[in-house]
Each structure stands twice: as structure tokens, then as C-alpha cells.
């Protein structure tokens, strides 16, 4: 009788060692493999309509602010600019109107990074109506 009483007591003891082992293993694995994702931004642009019935935009283009994107720098209405001066000019423009259309003309050889830089400067100054054209 004594034996039968002792037995259930022994069986109820759970061995925690494998579980702790496993949890530690997983913990270390996660610590090594965790990879934080970059925070991504979206820069919205619009493209001119390819509609052939649309009125020729020649007159309008002359009135618009045009940013030129080249391999070696930027221009603003044909005047060469460094990123810092372009930023200053755009912040001045943004004081008048943030919804004015800005044309961004991109040279075919310019790296994509340049265009992103120009769009970033526009976004910094709150200019939202951006059109991307290719030269």
C-alpha cells in the first residue's frame, strides 16, 4: 500500500530541463536572426497624360517651375543649383504656394538617386504637385 501511494507523487514531477533548453535555443536563434526592416518612404509623382487630344502644354511649361536633374547636379529654371541652394529656392517657392505644379525634367543618364534627391527636397518643402518628365 505504501508503494502505491508514493508512485503518483513521483510521476507528477515534470522535468523542465528540455523545455528550458529549447526555449534558450530559440531565444538565441531569434537574437541572431532578427533583422530590422528599414522604414520606407513613398514619393508620389504624376506623369503627363499621353492623351493626344490634350492641349499642347508648351505655353504652360514656360510658366511652371522646372527642376532639371542631371548627372552632376540640378538646375532650377535653367540656372545651375547645388542641392543646398535648390532647397533654399524651393522653400521660398513653397511660401507662395505649395500646390503649384513643378516639372522635374530628368536627363536619361542621371542616376535614379538624383531624381529621388530632387523629389525629397520637394517633399521636404511640402510641394506635392510634382510632374516627372524625361529629356
Amino acid at each position, binding site marked *: 500500500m505504501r508503494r502505491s501511494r508514493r508512485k503518483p507523487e513521483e510521476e507528477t514531477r515534470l522535468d523542465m530541463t528540455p523545455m528550458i533548453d529549447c526555449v534558450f535555443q530559440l531565444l538565441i536563434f531569434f537574437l541572431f536572426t532578427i533583422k530590422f526592416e528599414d522604414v520606407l518612404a513613398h514619393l508620389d509623382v504624376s506623369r503627363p497624360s499621353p492623351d493626344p487630344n490634350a492641349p499642347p502644354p508648351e505655353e504652360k511649361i514656360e510658366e511652371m517651375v522646372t527642376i532639371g536633374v542631371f548627372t552632376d547636379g540640378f538646375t532650377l529654371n535653367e540656372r545651375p543649383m547645388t542641392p543646398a541652394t535648390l532647397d533654399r529656392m524651393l522653400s521660398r517657392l513653397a511660401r507662395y504656394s505649395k500646390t503649384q505644379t513643378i516639372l522635374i525634367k530628368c536627363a536619361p543618364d*542621371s542616376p535614379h538617386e538624383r531624381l529621388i534627391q530632387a523629389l525629397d527636397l520637394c517633399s521636404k518643402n511640402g510641394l506635392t504637385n510634382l510632374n516627372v518628365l524625361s529629356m
Partner: protein
Amino acid sequence: MAKLVQSDSQPDMTPMIDMVFQLMIFFLVTIQMERDMFVEDIRLAKSRHGPEIKDKVPGTVVIEVDAKGRIFMGRTLLSTEMLRYLLLGAVNRVGYNIPVQIRGDLRTPHRDIRRVMDVCTEVGLVRLQFVAIQKEVTQR
């Protein structure tokens, strides 16, 4: 005494096997998920001031252009014709109002990005977005 030594020499393999299977399944699932995402060798340009991408609009088309100007969608290399065909399919299914995200490598010449933009506008998709890194967390 003799009995005790015998029982010690036989370790229980069950927890180890359990664990190995758990890890194996985990690896299989995560590898599959990572593969499904994007082309790895695209380095995005940085844009500190661009608005953060929070919730992706359902149906958003993501087009990738690598440094050599190759076009990918869902890690599949596409020709310009194939891209046009796929975008037309997307337009027919969802409509013209879906945004198109262009993940261009920072070294890609603009002419290759232009090819993609031209196809998008030809098809009627005009909501274009360029993807850039706002805050870099990973070290490259």
C-alpha cells in the same frame, strides 16, 4: 547500482527531435517568406523627408528596376512587353486607380526608370510612387 547506470546511459531523444523539427519548420517557413518578397540586390536611395509607407493600398503594383535596368515583378524578370501585358491585366481586374510603386536602384540610369514609367502611363496608370529609404535600420 547496476540498474541506475544503465538507465542513465539511455538519454531521452524525444525533446531533441521535437526541437529539431520545430526549428526545421521555422526555417522552411521563413525562407519561403523572404524569397517571396523582393530582389535582394536593389539598393534604394535615401529620402529623409518623404512620407512613410504605412498601409499598402490593396492591389498596389510593385515594380523593381535593378542597377542594370532589368525589370522585375515579384522577383520575376520581365521584358517591357510582359510588363505591359501584366499591367493591363491589373488594370482590367482592379481599375486605373491603383498605385504603382517603383523600387529603383539608386544607380539605375533614368532612362531605364523612364521605360517603366512610360509603360505605366501607356496602360493608364498615373499614380506612380518611388520607394526610398526614410530611416535606415539595417547596415549594408
